[in-house]
């Protein structure tokens, strides 16, 4: 049974891996991170006054909405580019326990970030970029192992290298924003490359194959 179980487990993970087959998720994630990092840099660069106040009233909501927009855009692009080539899949909604776990992780992350932001004068800004680089790197390693996606290890290496590099620049909190911009650019470049290779390898099928 152990051998068969392993095979069935492997088969059960295929739909999840299929989401990542075309490079679109990395491309969209990269664009999103560049937008977030850029938006924060722009906000910090604005002179204090009504413009800055108005910007910070609107920007956070727009950034949250951009996350939903990225998921929507990824699905629409898959419909146009991926599904006609390698088949259509409608993924199952995550289970209740998965949603609760994700919400718990998001809350803990938000609390950690709030604690970090509250200690701005306690020297946290010096370690913020390297720490974020390590956290993102670990997240990429875990995702790589779970999805059997070795290309994510490249992003893990880039995340830690950029974290250390921006930390060494001692640019304060700005380095965190630049880390997002640079890592986003790396992710978008990797996603674009994988998308191009996917499109070349899988020409559009004339019919559905039936």
């Amino acid at each position, binding site marked *: *049974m152990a051998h*068969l*179980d392993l095979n*069935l487990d492997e*088969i*059960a*993970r*295929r*739909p*999840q891996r*299929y989401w990542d087959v075309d490079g679109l998720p990395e491309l969209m994630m990269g664009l999103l991170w560049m937008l977030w990092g850029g938006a924060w840099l722009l906000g910090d660069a604005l002179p204090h006054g009504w413009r800055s106040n108005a910007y910070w009233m609107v920007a956070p909501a727009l950034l949250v909405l951009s996350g939903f927009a990225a998921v929507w855009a990824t699905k629409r692009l898959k419909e146009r580019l991926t*599904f*006609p080539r*390698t*088949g*259509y*899949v*409608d*993924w*199952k*909604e995550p289970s209740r326990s998965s949603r609760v776990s994700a919400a718990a992780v998001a809350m803990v992350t938000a609390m950690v970030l709030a604690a970090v932001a509250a200690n701005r004068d306690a020297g946290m800004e010096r370690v913020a970029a390297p720490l974020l680089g390590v956290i993102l790197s670990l997240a990429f390693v875990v995702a790589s192992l779970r999805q059997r996606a070795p290309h994510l290890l490249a992003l893990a290496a880039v995340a830690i290298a950029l974290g250390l590099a921006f930390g060494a620049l001692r640019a304060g909190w700005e380095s965190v924003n630049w880390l997002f911009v640079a890592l986003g650019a790396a992710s978008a470049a990797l996603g674009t490359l994988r998308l191009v290779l996917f499109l070349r390898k899988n020409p559009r*099928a004339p*019919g*559905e*194959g*039936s």
Partner: protein
Amino acid sequence: MTDLDRVIHEPARLLIVALLAGVKEADFLWVLRESALTKGNLSSHLAKLEEAGYVELEKTYKGKIPLTLLRLTRQGRAALETYKKSLDGLLKRAVAR
């Protein structure tokens, strides 16, 4: 061996059912590529699974392109779970002897 569901026990059909168990629905092309079966073979196995009530087929169109959507029914999901439990039990008994 008598405990095992003969419809699912066939390796190609087990693969199809296991693939469909991980998604809400998928089209013929995706299952064809993931299973590496031939079109004829896949069609014939799907017909048997549909006949057993394990898989639901929906013929539709995406623009002008025909699309066959495949879904595992509740009965199909239950049959897969029962099959896994039955096989597990059989092997445990064989090891215990």
